[in-house]
Every structure is written in structure tokens, then in C-alpha cells.
């Protein structure tokens, strides 16, 4: 059918809605709304993980530090202590660029683990535990 044979009895709105100037912004709006919904439901600022010693045994009472990037360097934002099963949890992490480290006298200290989050305060669970070494 050519342009001159346009069917005027058909409603115009389906063609208008399938226009790329409508479809692309609508798609972007949906993606943005979806992303924001994900952010709102996952931004409690929880950072969790476990602390193990060199032999793989959970360490209780290790001091775990949360480091937050502050323009040029990382500064300690919060400190917590590991539980009997070696687990720890920070609440209210405000940043998207953080580091976590653990230390216990006699057991040693872990390397600082850098964590990059997709948005500030994103809930995050460390896959690999913090391992304390060089305890002597």
C-alpha cells in the first residue's frame, strides 16, 4: 500500500505509539524505573562477610574495619567485631567505593579487600572470606 492509499478508517494511535520517537524514550523510562526500583530495594548499606584464620577456622572477636573512599584516600568509617562463626556485618555503609579489612592480635591481619558497588549503600556479601595471616 502506498502513502496515497492510506486507510483513514484505521485509528492513528497504534502508528503513533510504535514511532521510534515514542518507543525509545518509553524504553529508557522503563529501564530507569526498573533500575530505581532495584536500587530502592537493595540500598540498606549492608556489607557482610566472614573472617577465617590461616587454617580456615572461623575467628571470633576479630576487629573488622570498613574503609570509605574520601576524595583522595580511604578512611575508616566503621568498626565491628566478628561473631563466633566468624561472620560480621556492617549496616549503613554510605559509599560505593569501599574496602574491608580484619585484624586480631595473635591471629594476624587480612589484606584490605577493595569492593566496588554499582550504587552507594548497595547491599553486598563478600564471596571470599577475610583471611588472617602473619599472626606471629
Amino acid at each position, binding site marked *: 500500500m502506498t502513502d496515497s492509499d492510506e486507510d483513514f478508517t484505521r485509528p492513528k494511535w497504534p502508528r503513533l505509539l510504535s514511532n*521510534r*520517537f515514542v518507543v*525509545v524514550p518509553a524504553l529508557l523510562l522503563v529501564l530507569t524505573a526498573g533500575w530505581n526500583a532495584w536500587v530502592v530495594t537493595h540500598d540498606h548499606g549492608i556489607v557482610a562477610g566472614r573472617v577465617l584464620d590461616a587454617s580456615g577456622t572461623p575467628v571470633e572477636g576479630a576487629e573488622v574495619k570498613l574503609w570509605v573512599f574520601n*576524595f*583522595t584516600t580511604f578512611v575508616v568509617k566503621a568498626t565491628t567485631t566478628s561473631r563466633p562463626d566468624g561472620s560480621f556485618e556492617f549496616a549503613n555503609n554510605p559509599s*560505593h*567505593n569501599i574496602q574491608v579489612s580484619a585484624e586480631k592480635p595473635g591471629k594476624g591481619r587480612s589484606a584490605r579487600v577493595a569492593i*566496588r*558497588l*554499582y*550504587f*552507594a549503600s548497595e547491599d553486598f556479601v563478600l564471596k571470599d572470606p577475610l583471611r588472617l595471616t602473619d599472626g606471629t
Partner: protein
Amino acid sequence: MRRYPRWPIHLALLAASFIMLVPFYWVLKTSVSGENIFSYPPNIIPRDPNPFYYVDVWYAIPFARFFLNSVVVSTMTVVANVVLNAMAGYSLTQNFFGKNMVMMLFLSCMMIPFQATIIPAYLITGKLGLLDSYLGLALPMFSTIICIFVFKASFDAVPRSLIDAARIDGLSEWRIIWKIMMPLAKGAIATNVILAFIWSWNNFMWPLISTRSIDMQTLPLGLARFLSYQEDTTGALYAFCIMVLAPSLLLFLLAQKEFVQGLTSGATKG
């Protein structure tokens, strides 16, 4: 008629496209890898690509606010450009006393750079009480002479008989512009939209002078602010560039057909 092979043209076009697209690819690659620009040998494929430089940009400056400001100012500029330039372009297709003088004035004004008019523009905006406001940011770009001529070229291509018929049917000049001329000038409208948008979106000098508070700054000013905040900016700087470029690139891709039509309309007679 002898047909020449097309592959040499396609080859040349491919080579030209490659040369033009390589910088864009490099910016995109660096924005996801953060690779130092001086590293040797350079990696063609990004190593460990990640989106975290974009996240850094988002939180280093009030990106959402700057983005909103840019969108509002650009939208105002685009709407004003289409309306005012169409009116001016239509008037230049009519015969009136001093038309040639007006045309000469427009053409001569095109030679005056914007930088030379910044102080008067600032004083006028200040007297109107529009400094540090959206309207004040958009006002100097409300009409551009090049776009007036784009509309004029497009309106010149419309047969006079059509306008005469509209007048005989009783349409006023306003309704002739909006009901007859504008639907026939989609290419010119697209050209106006894209040019006005790009000029407004990339404008640095005027927002720098006319804004005082951080809340009213636009993205180009945000880029300058961002550079002053960060030390190692390689990846984040390129990510910022992509974030600033993306909307105008999207707009061009959406309307490229109309854009090319607008540039070529009025190029031929008959």
C-alpha cells in the same frame, strides 16, 4: 550505460568511517577499562571491563542535578528555536520593504562571535533579573541565524500557489505557518532541533558566566568541576564524556533521516 564497480567507493567509505570512529571507540574503551592513555602497547580490546568509572562520576558531582539542568535548558532552547526561527524564516519568504537589508543584517550578524556579545548579553540578562535561572541560561540561544535560513530554504521550496490557496480559504498568516508550512518542513524542524540541542547541550561559556549557584550549573560546567575534584581521572573522565555525549548521540541517531533531509532540502530547485 556502463556500470562501474561500487566496491572501491565502499572501501573508501569504510576507511573514512574507521578513522572517524576510532576516537569514539577509544573513549568508550577507556571509560570501561581506565587504561592509561600513555600505556604501551595499547590494548585494542578492553581488559576487565567494568562500569565503575560511571558510578564514580555519578557520585563525584551532583550529576543528576546537572543533567536535569542541561535537559531543561536544552528543551527550552529547542522549543524556542523551532517556534521563533520558523516565524522569522517564514517572514523572509514574504516580500516586504527592506527585506534585503534585513537579510544582509542577518548575514553580517553571523560573523560576530558569541564571545563578543557576552558582556551585553550578561548585562541584559542581569537587568531582566534572569541571572542564575533556567530562562536566563537559555535566553541567548533562543534563536540562531543559521537555523532561520534553514527554515527559509525549506519554506522557499513550498509552491506559492499552496500559500495563495490557503489565503483564499481564509487562513491567517499564523495558521499558514503552523498548519501549512510546518508539516511540510519536517526536515528543517529536525535540523533545528538537533542543532539547537547540540549547541545548548555543549555550551560552556554562557552557563559559566550566568550561573552562580551549583544547583543551576549544567553538564559542561560539571565536567570542569569534576576535573578539579579528582586526581586520577583517566577512566572516570572518559566515562563522564560518554555520559555527556550519549543524549545528543541518541537524538542524532533517532532523527538522522530528518537531519540529512533538512540539510539537503532547498539544495535543488524545480
